């Protein structure tokens, strides 16, 4: 058409990468913030559930291998002899690794924090304890030990922590169910927010959609443009939320490491663990954030398709 052969502009001379759905809008920024907050909360929930699960496993592992033999002092009996007999009997029972008898002073020391300094524990019939460590693989089979004690040390009673463990199971299960319910609520909230944002973006881009139709764009192409737009918003929001959650757990782990030097901190660490999420935990955060971003894109695509069908 032109006489002079025109030079084709280089890449740097031509602006040509603008997405068809405008990238920056107030609604888009608001959606990024909403997705970031929900991703942060979802990652905290997932990470918290993982920590509780790991702590529960740790308690279970430690407790399940230990059983306690209790000797209640009775008038006229030599408690120390009964304790020595029970410890000796237990240590010979099948499946027992060792049996450690607590001295009277040690037994009183265990109760001291609960009873205070002003109580003369020497006047109280404090039960004496023997801690029995089971051999690996024998923690669930306490019958030989129970039978050996019944035969050789009838004054001893065996506590295998099963009630406590079943309560622990219930508690850990409840935490997981609660976390799953919270997670589901967050996903519903996010889906609703993405739905509103997509419909808003479609309404704002009605003229763009019309023009795209007139120049020959298929619905799948238009939906793909919106999907790409919302996937980018989702990635940005989920990235921010996921990174914030990872940072939170890293700071919590550092704080618990520092606090471990104090007695209160040590107790918290003993109960709830060191807030060290570990690689699987951080992988879960990446997975949750990625899934939320993908969900954002897929949801918006479905909504755009529905809107386009309604337009036709």
């Amino acid at each position, binding site marked *: *058409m*032109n006489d002079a052969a*025109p030079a*084709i*502009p280089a890449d740097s*001379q*031509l*602006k*040509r990468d*603008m997405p*068809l759905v*405008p990238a920056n809008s107030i609604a888009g920024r608001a959606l990024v913030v909403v997705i970031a907050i929900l991703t942060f909360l979802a990652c905290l929930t997932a990470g918290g559930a993982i920590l509780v699960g790991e702590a529960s496993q740790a308690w279970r592992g430690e407790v399940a291998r230990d059983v306690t033999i209790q000797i209640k002092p009775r008038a006229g009996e030599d408690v120390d002899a009964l304790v020595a007999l029970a410890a000796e009997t237990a240590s010979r029972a099948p499946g027992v690794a060792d049996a450690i008898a607590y001295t009277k002073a040690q037994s009183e020391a265990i109760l001291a924090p609960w009873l205070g300094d002003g109580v003369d524990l020497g006047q109280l019939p404090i039960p004496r304890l023997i801690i029995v460590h089971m051999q690996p693989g024998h923690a669930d089979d306490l019958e030989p030990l129970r039978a050996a004690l019944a035969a050789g040390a009838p004054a001893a009673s065996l506590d295998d922590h099963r009630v406590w463990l079943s309560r622990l199971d219930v508690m850990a299960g409840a935490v997981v169910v609660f976390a799953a319910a919270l997670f589901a609520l967050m996903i519903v909230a996010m889906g609703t927010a993405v739905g509103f944002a997509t419909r808003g973006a479609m309404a704002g881009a009605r*003229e*763009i959609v*019309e*023009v*795209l*139709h*007139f*120049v*020959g*764009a*298929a*619905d799948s*192409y238009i939906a793909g443009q919106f999907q790409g737009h919302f996937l980018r918003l989702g990635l940005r929001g989920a990235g921010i939320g996921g990174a914030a959650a990872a940072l939170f757990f890293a700071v919590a782990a550092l704080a618990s490491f520092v606090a471990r030097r104090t007695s209160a901190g040590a107790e918290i660490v003993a109960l709830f663990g060191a807030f060290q999420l570990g690689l699987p935990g951080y992988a879960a955060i990446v997975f949750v954030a990625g899934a939320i971003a993908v969900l954002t894109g897929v949801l918006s695509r479905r909504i755009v398709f529905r809107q386009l069908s309604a337009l*036709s």
Partner: protein
Amino acid sequence: MLRFDNVGLRYGVGPEVLRDLDFSIAPQSFQFLTGPSGAGKTTMLKLMLLSLKPTRGTIHIFGEEAGGLSKDQITALRRRIGVVFQDFRLLDHLTTYENVALPLRVRGRDEAGYRAEVVELLRWVGLGDRMNALPPVLSGGEKQRAAIARALIVRPELLLADEPTGNVDPSLARRLLRLFVELHKSGTAVVIATHDLSLMDQFGYARRLVVGDGQLRVFEGDPR
């Protein structure tokens, strides 16, 4: 190429705004669609573009009966039609280059593959130095030329133009019309909606579709 049989259109339960439309557009033909403002020229173009469905009658386009077409089939047919809107319909967040390249982009073509032809067309319509400008900073005439270039870039079989010279000075209007004539000579059927009688008088050989009072009368052009 395009045939209307007893086509009528009404909005809701109102009276028919267009009725008894019987005409056809032949391949490689050139015609003006004219009539007073508000007579229904733009509505006629929307019917031709299949963005409106008639309330009665049938429209055949490229050998297909429009009423039975799926959305994908309509999309495929629209790719054979170029359209210039009266209000330009340029996307404000895209540059002039991106707006003109849009029909090629939505067809999934690689940008490097069409850059030369888009640039050449932009230079031909006098927008060679406005390729990176956004529509809000373009003048009315520049927007008009960009809109025309966008319609022409795919070398359509049918070109529908709604007042394509309404915002340009007479000399540019003649130049743009020459562009349509060249496109017509290369095999495109052209329908230009206008109420500019002087413009139509320059092309006495063109057929005139005159819409008024909801009906259409066809006047064949002078033989060349």
